[in-house]
């Protein structure tokens, strides 16, 4: 298992022409990551180059829509979970104490396991002195392999309702060939699944679009790749559709722009039909070949080693000892507060624009940004922060170099590859790779010299702010940090407290993309979920998955199709599908470039003008506010 961030200069010395592993990522969803990855893979294959496409966006894998592979084999991905032999168990409680995830509990007369909460760290097994625990596999997804023409096709799929994407990503990446160019389609954002996908890359392409949201999310993604120390460039999708701020920023930061994809309706239409852009516009092949050339020279230009100082600053910012003031006891009967969560499954469908518009139309509402990995709502709502707070999402291990005898026990027991054995420098001390550490505590529990402690990790910030439309609760997760689900739960809870205190009766939440941990945390217990989708095959595909998720949590849902007139036929298919599943259609929003122009101006589209999108969003709001009552 390759869990270390591989130095990309390894194996490239002496004119070695090992094919590249290229990871296509983006801070923001819906920027064209899959378009770029699939077209690049198909272009290279068309020139006779051995190439594999690997879809690591296991929450919403969409590459298959464009490459249309024949899947030859599927391998279930599982994590090991405990099974207790009651005959041997003495109810001593050691396993329950060792488990940091409440996945095994010892009651006075019985041991219970909760396989869905288990991270597979093996801590309970190690703790049991009676040999009463064995591990059995629990399937959480599948890694599939096939071929799309000359392209080797690999994809992972996370089962609905499962929160942990990284094991599925690791499984699918472990099958990537080493003798072919590999194009990895990463999930959006900057959290653990993205890091997992980027590990081992020779070069990263960050796809963005020239809008304020696009630039904001690009900055987060750049920070992430810089920390990992991998060479990267930026691809601008829909070039010319927004403003120049993105290009100017890249120039200032000396980040090469490796590709510009024009804002061409034919590309959007091909996408909506599930076709490769190079089939619709064959001249694009040349651009993708040039991209590949640029990436080769970027990869060989050397590694940007992350400065240790920068790493320290991000992962170990000072820890406030005091708990959150939010834990104060609140007396009195809570009054009913309704909660609307806007989600999309697929990124970039306009979820944030819709949520922000609703907030400007609603009376007595609090807005909540639950998209803590790539928060954008603040760009439109310009909040004034009233209370900043630190967020601690869990504990991570740290090794005391004075005590470490480098016996290697920790590295042997860690199942997440989070213990680094330093190859150079001071060989006497092992180090924790904080990006990989799951906080299971196995290393700390079993270190013979007691050199390892579990310290609370500060991995984000959250804020209570004022905006021109009312209060806002939002957050920012540190780059490459875990526990976004917990931060999402926290901001929702705090927003509820703000509403309670200030007399608002509605929470409007901008949810996270995907179907994993942060989304589950965004929607559980909500009064209603609005799914914003778009009339593309990917939109339809992701609607299925997100609707399954809502059904599993028994949530009331509604759907709206954004940019509905781009592909009326697909809009109808989506609406029929929603109807079949009993999800009411609450509105269509017409395509309108006012949406982008409003964003550049820092306004919601309903504030900006009275154009088609503005009118449609207002009508949608009427129906949503009726439905949620």
């Amino acid at each position: 298992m390759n869990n270390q961030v591989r130095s990309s200069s390894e194996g490239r010395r002496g004119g070695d022409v090992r094919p590249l592993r290229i990871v296509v990522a983006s801070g923001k969803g819906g920027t064209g990551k899959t378009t770029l990855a699939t077209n690049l893979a198909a272009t290279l294959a068309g020139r006779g180059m051995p190439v594999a496409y690997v879809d690591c966006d296991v929450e919403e894998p969409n590459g298959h829509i464009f490459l249309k592979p024949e899947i030859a084999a599927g391998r279930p991905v599982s994590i090991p979970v405990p099974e207790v032999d009651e005959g041997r168990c003495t109810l001593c409680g050691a396993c329950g104490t060792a488990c940091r995830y409440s996945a095994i509990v010892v009651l006075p007369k019985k041991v219970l396991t909760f396989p869905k909460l288990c991270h597979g760290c093996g801590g309970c097994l190690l703790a049991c002195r009676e040999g009463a625990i064995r591990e059995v596999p629990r399937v959480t997804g599948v890694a599939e392999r096939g071929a799309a023409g000359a392209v080797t096709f690999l994809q992972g799929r996370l089962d609905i309702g499962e929160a942990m994407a990284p094991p599925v990503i690791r499984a699918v990446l472990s099958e990537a060939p080493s003798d072919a160019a590999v194009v990895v389609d990463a999930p959006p954002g900057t959290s653990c699944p993205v890091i997992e996908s980027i590990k081992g890359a020779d070069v990263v392409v960050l796809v963005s679009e020239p809008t304020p949201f696009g630039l904001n999310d690009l900055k987060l993604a750049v920070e992430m790749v810089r920390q990992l120390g991998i060479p990267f460039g930026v691809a601008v999708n829909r070039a010319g559709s927004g403003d120049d701020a993105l290009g100017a920023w890249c120039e200032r930061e000396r980040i090469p722009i490796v590709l510009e994809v024009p804002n061409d309706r034919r590309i959007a239409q091909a996408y909506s039909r599930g076709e490769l852009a190079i089939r619709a516009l064959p001249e694009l092949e040349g651009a993708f070949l040039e991209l590949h050339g640029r990436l080769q020279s970027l990869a060989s230009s050397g590694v940007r080693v992350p400065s240790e100082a920068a790493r320290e600053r991000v992962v170990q910012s000072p820890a406030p000892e005091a708990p959150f003031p939010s834990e104060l006891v609140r007396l009195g009967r809570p009054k009913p507060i309704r909660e609307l969560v806007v989600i999309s499954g697929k990124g970039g469908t306009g979820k944030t624009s819709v949520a922000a518009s609703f907030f400007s139309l609603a009376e007595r509402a609090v807005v909540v940004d639950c998209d803590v990995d790539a928060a954008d709502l603040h760009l439109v709502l310009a909040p004034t922060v009233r209370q900043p707070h630190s967020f601690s999402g869990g504990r991570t291990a740290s090794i005391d170099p004075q005590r470490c005898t480098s016996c290697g026990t920790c590295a042997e027991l860690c199942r997440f590859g989070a213990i680094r054995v330093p190859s150079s420098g001071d060989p006497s001390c092992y180090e924790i790779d904080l990006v990989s550490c799951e906080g299971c505590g196995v290393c700390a529990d079993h270190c013979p010299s007691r050199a390892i402690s579990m310290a609370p990790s500060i991995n984000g910030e959250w804020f209570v702010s004022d905006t021109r439309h009312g209060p806002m609760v939002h957050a920012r997760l540190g780059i490459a940090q875990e526990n976004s689900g917990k931060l999402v739960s926290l901001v929702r809870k705090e927003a509820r407290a703000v509403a309670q205190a200030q007399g608002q009766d509605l929470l409007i939440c901008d949810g996270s993309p995907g179907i994993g941990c942060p989304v589950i945390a965004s929607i559980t217990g909500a009064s209603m979920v609005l799914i914003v989708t778009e009339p593309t095959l990917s939109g339809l595909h992701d609607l299925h998955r997100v609707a399954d998720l809502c059904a599993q949590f028994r949530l009331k849902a509604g759907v709206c199709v954004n940019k509905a007139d781009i592909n009326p036929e697909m809009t109808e298919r989506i609406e029929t599908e929603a109807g079949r599943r009993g999800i009411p259609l609450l509105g269509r929003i017409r395509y309108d470039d006012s949406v982008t122009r409003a964003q550049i101006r820092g306004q919601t589209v309903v504030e900006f003008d009275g154009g088609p999108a503005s009118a449609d969003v207002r009508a949608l709001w009427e129906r949503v506010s009726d439905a949620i009552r």
Partner: protein
Amino acid sequence: MRVAVTAAGPSLDAELDPRFGRCAWFVLIDTQDMSIEALQNESGSLGGGAGIQSAQLMARKGVQAVLTGHCGPNAHQTLTAAGIAAYVGCSGTVAQAVARFKSGELRPASSPDASSHSGMGGDHR
């Protein structure tokens, strides 16, 4: 008999907190002499598994019945395994809930009535 009520505060006149795993306090009452012990819920801020940890705490404290608003599947399973009856749908103050329990008005829940994570900030109907 030892009964636990999920509460917003550490006393008999505190409002019942409808969440089980993420309630602010557990007020433990001996129904014989109405003596109380109040425990602050340490698992309220856990990332996950708050219901399980709370149920485990109830078992360790020798509680035989829990009076609360809602109880999710993991918490319900743990309480059941520990032989603790869960009474959901309770409201009012701690003292009122205990009075209704003693008069036999309440019926234990045979299944969870809330989805997982619902105490994390959702709408309590």
